């Protein structure tokens, strides 16, 4: 057994990753980057799930992680398709210009 890495480190890493994802989602303009930020957040949450699962010796966290990965895969397929269509129609991927819902 290697030295036990304290659980707080995992959680801190997860929080940092999530915060980076949030920051990327909020501040980046390119829609692909925003999309990647969402993936980052999802995976940060996955890390938390695994950590707690390991810590509590419970399988539930693993199951949730797999669920999230499946949903993320599906979401990636749909999301990329939407992004492709948007680019075809608008020749732009800047997120601020995609605001036709306004008014």
């Amino acid at each position, binding site marked *: 057994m290697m030295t036990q890495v304290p659980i707080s480190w995992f959680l801190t890493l997860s929080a940092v990753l999530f915060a980076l994802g949030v920051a990327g*989602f*909020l501040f980046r303009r390119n829609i692909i980057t925003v999309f990647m930020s969402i993936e980052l957040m999802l995976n940060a949450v996955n890390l938390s799930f695994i950590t707690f699962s390991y810590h509590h010796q419970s399988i539930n966290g693993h199951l949730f992680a797999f669920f999230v990965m499946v949903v993320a895969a599906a979401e990636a397929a749909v999301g990329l398709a939407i992004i492709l269509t948007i680019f075809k129609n608008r020749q732009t991927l800047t*997120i*601020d210009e995609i*605001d036709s*819902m*306004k*008014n």
Partner: protein
Amino acid sequence: MQLWLIPILPLAGFVINGLFGRRFSKSVINAVAIGSVLLSFAWVLKTLLGLSPLDSGYIEHYFTWIQSGSINIGCDFAVDRLTAVMLLVVTGIGSLIHIYSVGYMAHEGGYYRFFAYMNLFMFFMLVLVLAANYLLLFVGWEGVGLCSYLLIGFYFTKKFATDAGNKAFIVNRIGDFGFSLGMFLIFVTFGSLDFGNVFHQAPGASTAVLTKIGLLLLVGACGKSAQLPLYVWLPDAMAGPTPVSALIHAATMVTAGVYMMARSWPILVNAPVAMDTMAVIGIATAFFAASIGLVQNDIKKVFAYSTVSQLGYMFVGVGCGAFSAGIWHLMTHAFFKALLFLGAGSVIHALSGEQDLRNMGGLRSKIRWTFLTMMCAAVAIAGIPPFSGFFSKDAILLAAYHHAPWMYWLGVVTAGMTAFYVFRAMFLTFFGTYRGHGHPHESPPVMWVPLAILAVLSLIGGLIFKIPDFLQAFFHAPEPPKDESLMMISVASGVIGILIAWFVYIAKPAMADSLASTFKWLYTPLYNKYYVDEIYDAMVVKPLVGGSRWVLWKGADAGLIDGSVNGVGALAQKVGGVLRLLQSGNIRSYATWVLFGSVLAIVAMAIASTLPLGGIQ
């Protein structure tokens, strides 16, 4: 006896002329309009001869009109002696006036419309007279009001004529309101509106209820018969063509109130307060209107106020219990007042529309027939024996003396004023020198022949139609004893009135103006009709209009109702305006809100978990 034919014939005339009259030639319109009324008159004569001596009423039931719960109202016509008098007056005078109108309206537009309305009026008036229950009477009552409105506003391109029509209609609504309430009370009290049924039960009802009914019916009669304080519409009604003034606003429709009150005599005799009120209103109106008539310069206005005044006499008669005298005066008044109006129409026709007495004068040689016939009416209305007005007015004054002597004396003074204003109008029109500019021409025979017939009736109507004897059996009212001295006084009053008029307007023509300036304090309010129209305007019309405009329109409608509706709309818009800022379409701002919300939720959970209650785990 096919009573329904009597009103249906003029109705048919109305339908034919009203629908197709535009395409008819004048002779066809004349044939339809006059023919229908003459046929109706003939049918009245045939019916009455067939029913004579008409000791008891004769009723025809046609169909049940309203059947609902305890309400059972039939479409019934009835003829009794009172109806007989009214039928003869309405169809007889109506026929003459229709014939006269052919000449008078010859040069007017809307010829077929005029005769259609006149026939419609005849229909409703005959329904009113023939009705055997209050509701059917009310149908006729409202119908003649409608025709009155239509014919007053006949020259509908002139503002004053349409205003006068509206005024007549609106003022009459006040009276009709009272009449309706009276009918409701009759129904509640007696459970029926049939004359026979109601009058049979009337003596058994309490005096208080009968008094209420009598007073409410009196309100209705005051509206229709132009009594104080609702008389104001009648002088303005002269805006209509002159035959209309003669038929509707002198001879027939305005007497409907008198007829209705006389018809309700079994109620009235058990309600002395209502009768006293009626007599007081009548004598006050008679005096009041006659005093205004003294100084008017429009020939039709003089006769209009005269009509109001004479209707006041009829009210005195009915109110004093001399029902037959009231009806007698109704009949003689129909003769001589229709004649005065038709004569005035003939004068106006001769002068091509001139109505101002100051622009007439010296016409007696130029329009001889008109002059002679109007003179007959003038002596009749002045109460000179043995002409028609003398008998009926004398009968009323006699009853008034036995009721309350002060009414008699006021009536005598009014009789003097009546003689004065009529002869003033006659002298100003026919004597002296001609003051106008046009060339007067005598009216065609179609106009003066009806005048001549009415003149004969005015002269001898009182001698040959002894209405009190005829109606004695109907009203069962005791006749006051004859009194020669009272009769002499009232005749003397009339003669004095004529002499004063002769003195002021013939002997010393300059005297009228000097009198007017000497008695300016008296002349001015009289000339301005006691400012009654102005008072009504200030006290009723202005507050109503102002209240409607500022309270109901600007306040309630525009302020409250529109304000709340618009306010709800504006509120939704404002709230939406704030909310729509959230829906920016900017994905990153959405994300910010999500983040903000998540943080808030986490903070809330953190705070909740520290609370002693446990909170959300």
